[in-house]
């Protein structure tokens, strides 16, 4: 077999194939429900009601979507430039650490929230700067270095929680001292369990969208991602663009951790992120790396996770069905997107 580029893919092809990918994921979900000994339609229904069936469920889904919007944006920005940042998990924790460092009394000013957000972004950016400089200066593959940094960062968090940041009232449970009230993100509407982190995530998506579509940097990022050699030939500072991309990407991922600590949890613990950094890759790919699309897919992915938790309690199908479906959706989607541009021919 051989792949042949399609000159002008039809609208049916461009929209139909991604829809087919989602339908195929749905089919896998039903098959897994059968394997789990449950009624497939009941399982799908329970996932949907678990995610959106009540006011509480919707708020839970939006809360879960918040860090995913940030990590999804971080990945989307980086992948657009073909910068493979797989270290959003580590950058998330870097942001979370800064939220605790500045939010537990060290900075008793009304400006503590913007300042800790800024510091968190700088920490996340700095963490990605190393791998990117290794890539541009020495040609070290950033996938492996960013992945390895995830493990180093978790060990650093573990050390901090058992040492310098340990909550003396934590009863032996490894968690940090709680944030002071001034350092907490307030709720958007009093009485509704949804914090300002969600609104900030949407603002971040709009900002990234503006950067990508309305600025020179956005144009350069796309050019570098499409063809670095051509971009370099055209006189573009490719390495500088990669570094700027990394700073933006690392900063966005750090906001995920910062908003989880300042908005949702109020303290840092080792289970702050159940893999939000990795799930961000799926969120970004499902959104075709579009920043506004990331908001939609993050809410969708969060809904699948929240809904699967509820379904698992009711139907007994393991909650890990959500992780499987997301991975399947990712693989189906990249294949579908390819097939919108090429057709398979024999020979």
């Amino acid at each position, binding site marked *: *077999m*051989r*792949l042949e580029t399609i000159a002008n893919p039809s609208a049916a092809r461009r929209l139909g194939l991604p829809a087919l990918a989602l339908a195929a994921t749905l089919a896998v979900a039903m098959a*897994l429900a059968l*394997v*789990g000994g449950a009624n497939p339609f009941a399982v799908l229904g329970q996932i949907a009601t678990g995610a959106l069936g009540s006011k509480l469920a919707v708020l839970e889904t939006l809360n879960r979507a918040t860090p995913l919007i940030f990590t999804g944006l971080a990945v989307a920005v980086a992948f657009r430039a073909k910068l*493979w940042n*797989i270290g959003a998990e580590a950058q998330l924790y870097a942001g979370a650490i800064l939220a605790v460092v500045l939010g537990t009394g060290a900075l008793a000013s009304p400006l503590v929230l913007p300042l800790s957000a800024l510091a968190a972004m700088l920490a996340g950016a700095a963490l990605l700067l190393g791998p990117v400089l*290794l890539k541009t200066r*020495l*040609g*070290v*593959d950033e*996938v*492996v*270095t960013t*992945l*390895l*940094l995830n*493990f*180093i960062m978790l*060990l*650093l968090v*573990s*050390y901090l929680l*058992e*040492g310098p940041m340990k909550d003396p009232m934590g009863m032996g449970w490894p968690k940090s001292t709680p944030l002071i009230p001034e350092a907490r993100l307030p709720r958007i509407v009093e009485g509704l369990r949804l914090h300002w982190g969600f609104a900030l995530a949407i603002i971040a998506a709009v900002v990234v969208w503006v950067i990508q579509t309305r600025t020179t940097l956005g144009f350069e990022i796309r050019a570098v991602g499409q063809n670095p050699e051509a971009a370099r030939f055209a006189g573009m500072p490719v390495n500088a663009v990669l570094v700027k991309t990394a700073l933006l990407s690392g900063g966005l991922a750090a906001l995920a951790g910062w908003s989880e600590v300042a908005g949702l949890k109020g303290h840092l613990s080792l289970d702050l992120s159940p893999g939000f950094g*990795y799930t961000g*890759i*799926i969120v970004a*790919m499902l959104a075709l790396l579009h920043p506004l699309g990331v908001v939609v897919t993050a809410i969708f992915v969060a809904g699948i996770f929240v809904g699967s938790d509820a379904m698992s309690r009711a139907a*007994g*199908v*393991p*909650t*890990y*069905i959500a*992780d*499987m479906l*997301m*991975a*399947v959706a*990712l*693989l189906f989607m*990249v*294949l579908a997107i*390819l097939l919108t541009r090429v057709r398979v021919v024999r*020979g």
Partner: protein
Amino acid sequence: MSEIVDILISASFWAAVIRIATPLILATMGELICERAGVLNLGIEGIMVIGAFAGWMAVYQGLPLWGGVAVAMGAGMLFGLLHSTLTVPFGLSQHVVGLGVTLLATASASFAYRLMLPEVTSPPKIEPFQPLHIPSLSDLPWAGEALSQTALTWTAFAVAGLVAWVLYRTPLGLAVRAVGENPAAVEAQGLSVTGLRMGAVIVGSGLMAVGGAFLTLSAFSSFFFEMVNGRGWICIALVVFGAWKPGKAVLGAILFAGFDALQIRLQQTDLGAVLPYQLFLALPFILSILALILMSRRAEVPASLMVPYNKGER
């Protein structure tokens, strides 16, 4: 310092080094085969997880230990088939597909574990591989203890030798190496680039899964969710460190295992009382990054690594 010397000359230390190196050697050989054929396989971490799970579950269900190894290998090859179908004929991003395969394989292991053992709080143990008694060798005073290893460990070293022999001494190995350097030339010879690359990824993935199965069938005799813990990513660094050569990669794996075994023992010394234990645990990951930096300037990387091949495109 004398404490470190005491550790380094003890037979139990070297027994641990070889034991810790075993899964690294198996998975590194698997990754090396893939990359020599031109395909970066980031599915390695998840494939090690599914291998650890499938091998253990098969033995728990009553299969003999070698049956468990075979099941693990089969599971790994299945994910290798998925990976290579998407990355070779379709030429999709090896980064994205690899991570997708890792996520899918890891989630499949978790899902199957909860499905088969819904109620248990601590995973059941199996009767693992026992150290082989080798006449005369096992009775030697120091070497006998250091070489007191299970059959899977001996297999790992045999596999490394076999991989080196096939790659450098057989026409098949020549074709695999050539397809990672210049696939168009291989096609011109009338060989199938797709077949060679897919075959390499499938076989390589099988070896990764056996590396994972060593953890459950020989080292820990039980399955935990986090047990692979980044070993796959370390193996990717080991392939680079070994300059894509089997012999050097094995030496790299032993060196890494040496540091790992050393850090576990150093935690029990005065040094461990002063420094946080997390620093010792981070050592393999820090070393992996250092190894990548150290080897970065060398030009031994297969020329067509991560470059998909499409017939008719030149």
